[in-house]
């Protein structure tokens, strides 16, 4: 009962020996994620935490451990290359946590991934978690609970907020996907809702968006035509001034496009219940889930 990751996921961590790479790998292992390998160039042969072998390349890690997902903690100037390396090695799921990758680099990555079978989540994202089975990312594991609500979000802490609201009301999550706050990302809001729509164990969807771009509008248009599951949405940034980048590189209203009000309108038009404040995200969904 999940999408993309579960107890069979075999994770490699690119940048496992760095400070935050090591910290979050430990936290994923404590949660129960099956971390089978690490990659840091020129550190091959080391062993992380007495049990995870470190390789110089993703190709070696893939060959020797059969890893099928990667978590990337490589610094922004090298992260695009790390994504391409993982794709070339045939790793099916690439989760890139790194914030601050140049847009020009991501344009090339996006173009090159079209010819590959790998799926990218992120960059600049908290990651993906199937509660009780597999956590790939920096989210606090304990706020989640296994269940039937799918969550997709462009923001980190705002997702935790919504998940915590669900969990404290006794409702668990099938999978939560943080797709990231950059203007160019791998898995989009639309891709994520399509996965949830096709998952028999996801009974309701929470869609958390923010100003900038048109990802929420595209997802809403698809949901309207193709999905009967209850959906609740929240859009952050109603009070954001136009033309300013609000923390996330992708959160910017440019040329009068990507406003919160236009996005909310698109959600409502698709029959999606819109939460007016961030404190009512879970309740808005629970009111329509029967």
């Amino acid at each position, binding site marked *: 009962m999940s999408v993309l990751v579960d107890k069979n996921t075999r994770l490699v961590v690119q940048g496992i020996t760095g400070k935050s790479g090591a910290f979050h790998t430990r936290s994923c292992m404590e949660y129960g994620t099956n971390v089978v390998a690490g990659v840091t160039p020129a550190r091959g042969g080391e062993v992380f935490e007495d049990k995870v072998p470190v390789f110089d390349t993703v190709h070696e890690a893939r060959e020797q451990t059969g890893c099928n997902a990667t978590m990337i903690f490589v610094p922004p100037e090298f992260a695009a290359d790390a994504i391409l390396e993982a794709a070339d090695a045939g790793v099916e799921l690439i989760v890139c946590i790194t914030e601050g990758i140049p847009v*020009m680099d991501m344009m*090339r990555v996006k173009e090159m991934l079209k010819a590959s079978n790998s799926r990218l989540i992120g960059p600049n994202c908290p990651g993906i978690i199937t509660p009780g089975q597999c956590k790939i990312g920096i989210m606090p594991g304990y706020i989640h609970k296994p269940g039937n609500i799918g969550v997709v979000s462009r923001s980190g802490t705002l997702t935790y907020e919504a998940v915590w609201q669900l969990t404290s009301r006794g409702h668990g999550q099938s999978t939560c996907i943080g797709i990231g706050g950059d203007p160019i990302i791998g898995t989009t809001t639309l891709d994520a809702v399509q996965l949830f729509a096709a998952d028999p164990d996801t009974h309701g969807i929470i869609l958390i968006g923010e100003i900038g771009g048109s990802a929420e509008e595209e997802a809403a248009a698809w949901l309207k035509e193709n999905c009967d599951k209850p959906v609740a949405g929240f859009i*952050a940034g109603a009070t954001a001034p136009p033309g300013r980048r609000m923390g996330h590189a992708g959160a910017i209203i440019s040329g009068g496009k990507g406003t919160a009000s236009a996005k909310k309108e698109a959600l409502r038009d698709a029959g999606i219940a819109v939460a007016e404040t961030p404190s009512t995200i879970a309740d808005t969904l629970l009111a329509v889930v029967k």
Partner: protein
Amino acid sequence: MNIHEYQAKELLDRFGAETPRGGVARTPAEAERVARELGTNQLVVKSQIHAGGRGKGTFTNGFQGGVHLCKTAGQARDLAAKMLGQTLVTHQTGPAGRVVNHVLVAESVEIEKEFYFAVLLDRATGAPVIVASREGGMDIEEVAAKSPEKIIREAVDPAFGLQPYQTRKLARELGFAPQQMRAACKLFAALYRCFHDCDCSMVEINPLVLTKGGQVLALDAKFSFDDNALFRHPDIMALRDVGEEDPREVEASKHHLSYIGLDGNIGCMVNGAGLAMATMDIIKHHGGEPANFLDVGGGATEEQVTEAFKILLSDPKVKAILVNIFGGIMKCDIIAQGVMNAVKAVRLGIPLVVRLEGTNVELGRKMLAESGLPIASASDLDDAAEQIVKLAPKE
């Protein structure tokens, strides 16, 4: 990051994108020298500030207009003397205006026709796109809204760049005559190279002009740079003029805090950009006005929290502060300790509401309650917003 017009001109020159001849001056004597070297009697002297509406602006010394035409080098010197060191107020600067430290002295060209030309990132496709129009010199949003058929879009493959045939296609669609095509194509190709090589998120030329003499020139340029890529462009980073930026934002950037000043009186400090925006929204929802966006990041340290308080308090408009932290990786008791230390360090004298959620939240709330400091604790986000709106004076 924004840059000055003369810097944009220098950048375009470097890529072979032709602009009207001219140069920057910091003194009246320099302005005279630049004007003389141009060897023309059609000159323009332009005040350099990061704001639009310069031509219609007024200097606080009473001199009208930040952009003037003139005929001689002596006149250019006199105009520069009236602008340099003076404060120019335009509809975009606010009443305080901006001090003019540079003027651009350039040849004033006779315009035959104006165009709009921009290279930017198309988020829907994740690739660059050229947007162009025959309706130059106008607000492109307006053109797009009123007559979308006048907007030309040409997608560019990010792996291969703008192809020569695409520049020819664009030139013809914009109505350039056969004898002007070579110059137009050369300019388009140079503008794309500049966009790509400088890691821009947008290069906007409005207007791009055909002169009466048959030249094709970039007359005015607006650059947006991708902040994520500035690390590999020290030369562009050097163009930053902190004198043109909000001093609170400059201070925040020194401490790796993401801060944007707004007009309200309720200061906010939040971890995470999405939650920070949502916090501003909920303050507004309850009838208050946020004074800022401030994201202290997922792993904020005590020092960063203290600096964030200092920045909030340096704004005289801030009359109340709301702290909203979802403690995930960082535990709530640690955050509570950081807030308490910061409140003591800055001797906080205005109402403060703290909303914590996450790991060890009970302990964190208890610490705040027993601290003896004037900190109100909120049970949830709604409660936090209601409390702070009640505590902040009405504007």
